[in-house]
Structures are given as C-alpha cells and as structure tokens.
C-alpha cells in the first residue's frame, strides 16, 4: 500500500513521523511537545509540523459539530499595523472595507496582487486606538508581510507594519459548547461578544485576545495568547471541556469542517492566479471604498465577465473527488477539484471545483475523473452545512 502520486498536491497528506531528518527543518508551535505527548499523528503542513489527527478525524469532526473541539492554530501568522493611518493602510492593501469596522470588530478580507490574483485571505481586527490586527495564513505570513511592505512603500501612510507572529500562540475553541468551555476560564462575559467581534481580556489569568471567529462553521472562539502560556492553557481548556466531551482536533478535522462550511483554503480555492470574485468572495471585495491593490484588475475582470467560478458538488456515484482531480462537463475537460472528500456530518462525498461560469450554477451534472474513470457528480449550492441559529 502506497500513497498515490495524485495526493502530492495535498500538503496535509504527507506523513512525517518517519525519518527525523525530514521533520527537523519543520517549524513547531509552542504546543508541539503537547501534541507528541498526546500521540497525535504529525504532518508537514506548509512547512509546519502539525497534528493532523489525535484519535479519529471523524470523531474529532463530530465533537466540534455536537459539543466542543480544541485546535492548535498557533502556526497562523499575526501582522500588526499601528499608527494614525493604520486603517487607511489596511484599506489600501486589503479588499474589504475596514472603515466599516467598529472598534473590537473583525472582518474577513483578502490581499491581492496588482493583477488581481490572491496573495492571501485574512482576518482584519480593529482595535479601539485605531491599530489593526491581522491574522494571516501560516505559510503565507512572510510573503504577506513582504507584499504589504512593498505595496505601501512610497505611499507615505503614517503607520508601521510588524510581523508579530512570534509573540502569539493561537488556540481555537470551536463548537456549540465552546462558549461554556471557555467561559469557565475567563471573567469576560463571552455571550456579549457577537460573531466576528473580539475583546482583550484574560483567560486563566493570562492576557488574551478573545475573538468570536472560527473556521469550522460552528460557533466558537479563537484566542491569542503569549506562546509560553499555550501548553498550560491547552490543558486547562481540555479540563474545562471535559464534561462536554471536548476533543483535541487536528488539521484533518479542521479541513472537513471548513469544507462542509464552504470556506476557502488558500492554495486550493484561492491562489495567486485566482481572484476572490471567482471564488464567490465578491462580498469581501468593496469596489466603492476607494483604491486598493488589485482593484483595477478586478474591475477589468468584472467588466469582461468572469470566465470561471467556484462551485460546490456532491458525488452521485461511488467515488471521492479529491483535490486536483479533473472535472468534465459534457464529456470534455472543464475544470478541476480544489478540495474534496467525505463529509462526516452529511455522510456524502462533497467538494469544491472551478467550472466555466455558465456551468457553475447548482444542478449542473458533471463528472469527476477518479483513477482515469469519469464518475458522476452534480453541482450544489454552498455551504453544504449551515448550523442552526441559536
């Protein structure tokens, strides 16, 4: 039994437990030793040695849907933009309108190249003093930082940009019992933090930035803390969530959860050659807010009509459409799968794919090419899974 060649596109698949020489160069989060002690299966995720699963991806996935799960997301990057014109700077380098943010509010946004392709998808947080706190993808952080510095050089924004990742560990507490779990460790009234808002407080007596955000399609929180505090907090959160059946969750469950929720993963749905309009992220692109990097290219793309769009699909016949597989419409190559796999919640095989715009509407019969055979599937609306509103 051997991993097949087509899995090479999927960075989360490479098992890295074997030769030490292969993993020694990988970056580690402050929770690395904690994961090893828990006997997590570790993988190379974009240069980071990360847990892909602790027990079973399916069990971890359902813990988040039904109770609460704990994720180490310390590999994510943090970029701080500080100074009188921090807002103006962020509004120039990101697609969403940060001026709409109230203090302690967050938004999803994207960094673009001048040609309209995506540098990264990010979270923008606005602090009361006007500073901006960006959470960016782990393996993109240096690229993002360099991109921002280059984009604003000569623009004379009165603001400084710092890659601050080394000052933060990040833990996600996700699921319907996430609030009750985290609430045991903080005096901050978590029910007062609305979805996509945040605050600065303390968790178990250590300063923490507490955001009601996540990447699972469930309610939950992402907390930013000092790296040295992460192992202690991890243990305390596990204890606090014990009565709810909390589980430590790896990147495997994180991926199945975000796929069900129809959320993009950089390197899959978004890349340097894909713009956010194609990825159904028009809602984070505010063309009327003033100039921003990539705006002209997007305007041109919009006026010319987008040639392809992201679509959801589910397999009709036996087979699992996975990342990188070809997609056919009417017997001809039409696109490719960006993410695909089994949906533990829906018990179907689902995925996302790029298709010519005219074929990207729900209900389009398609074939996914699996082991050289076309297998029947149909495009569907996204998200595949939406939690019931409380």
């Amino acid at each position, binding site marked *: *039994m*051997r*991993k*097949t060649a*087509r*899995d090479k596109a*999927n960075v*989360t*698949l490479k*098992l890295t437990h074997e030769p030490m020489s292969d993993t020694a160069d990988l970056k580690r989060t402050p929770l690395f030793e904690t994961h090893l002690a828990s006997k997590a*299966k570790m993988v190379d995720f974009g240069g980071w040695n990360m847990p*892909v*699963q602790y027990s*079973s*991806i*399916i069990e971890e996935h359902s813990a988040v849907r039904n109770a609460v799960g704990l994720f180490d997301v310390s590999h994510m990057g943090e970029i701080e933009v500080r100074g009188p014109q921090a807002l103006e700077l962020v509004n120039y380098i990101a697609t969403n309108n940060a001026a709409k943010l109230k203090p302690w509010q967050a938004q999803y946004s994207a960094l673009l190249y001048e040609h309209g392709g995506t540098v990264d998808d990010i979270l923008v947080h606005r602090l009361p003093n006007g500073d901006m706190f960006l959470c960016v993808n782990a393996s993109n952080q240096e690229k993002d930082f360099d991109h921002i510095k280059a984009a604003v050089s000569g623009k004379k924004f009165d603001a400084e940009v710092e890659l601050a990742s080394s000052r933060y560990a990040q833990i996600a507490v996700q699921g319907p019992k996430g609030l009750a779990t985290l609430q045991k460790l903080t005096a901050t009234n978590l029910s007062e933090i609305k979805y996509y808002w945040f605050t600065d407080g303390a968790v178990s007596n250590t300063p923490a930035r507490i955001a009601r955000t996540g990447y699972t399609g469930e309610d939950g929180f992402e907390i930013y803390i000092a790296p040295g505090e992460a192992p202690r907090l991890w243990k305390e959160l596990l204890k606090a969530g014990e009565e709810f059946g909390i589980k430590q969750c790896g990147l*495997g469950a994180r*991926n*199945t959860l975000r796929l069900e929720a129809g959320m993009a993963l950089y390197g899959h749905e978004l890349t340097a050659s894909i713009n956010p309009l194609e990825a159904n992220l028009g809602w984070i692109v505010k063309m009327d807010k003033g100039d921003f990097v990539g705006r002209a290219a997007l305007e041109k793309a919009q006026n010319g009509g987008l040639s392809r769009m992201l679509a959801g699909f589910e397999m009709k016949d*036996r*087979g*699992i459409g*996975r990342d990188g597989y070809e997609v056919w419409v009417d017997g001809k190559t039409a696109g490719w799968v960006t993410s695909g*796999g*089994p949906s*533990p919640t829906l018990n179907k095989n689902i995925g996302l794919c790029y298709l010519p715009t005219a074929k990207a509407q729900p209900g389009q019969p398609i074939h996914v090419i699996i*082991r050289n055979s076309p297998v029947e599937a149909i495009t569907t609306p996204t998200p595949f899974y939406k939690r019931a509103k409380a």
Partner: protein
Amino acid sequence: MSYPNNFKYTKEHEWVLIEGDNGTIGITEHAQSELGDIVFVDLPKVGAAITKGSTFGSVESVKAVSDIYAPVSGEVVEINEALGGAPEKLNSDPHGTAWLIKVKLAKPDEIGTLLSAADYEKHLG
C-alpha cells in the same frame, strides 16, 4: 500490535494468507492505523488477473487515497462484498473479517519473496 505468524507480508503493508492454491489478501494493522478512518474501498472484479507488485485497488481514508499492491499474482476468485457498505471494518479488523480479496495463485513460488511476520515487524522498526 500483533501480526499473525501464518501470514506473509509486503513492505507496502499488505498481507496474504496462503491456503493450498488460494491466497487471501488484506492490509495490515499498521496500514489501517496510518490511514485513519477508512471510508471507501475500491476492489477488482471476480475473474480479474492481478500481478505481484502491481496495484489492484485502493483504500481511501478521510484524508488520503492509497493504492493497494498485489503481494502475489493470480486470478480474483472472491471479493469481500461486506466492505462496500462497511469500509470502517478495515480499521477494526484488518487481519480478520476485513480481508479484501481471495485469489487463485498463478505463481506459488512468489511466496518465498514475501516477509515473515518477524521480518515485517522489523521493517516497521
């Protein structure tokens, strides 16, 4: 983890149990553990010919697809139909009820090139 002494093994983590002219083929405990939750099994049809060292099917977990390589050459005489509806059996009983296929051996002398349980465990380290 225990590996039956009456099985022969490959470095690619398949096992075969030889009984007379026939061989029963499966994946090892180590393989299922590495794969995690198995959600899909693709097997050849009865009557198909398989060749030692060539792929004859695949096993998919939530995250990964793995090809399965034939430990011996032969003709498929039976496939484990139960796995179609319950692929998770490969996680719970890979050396027992979750066998994959049975073959009629084409070249019985191939068996000599396979690993014993002790050699396989040594290979796992």
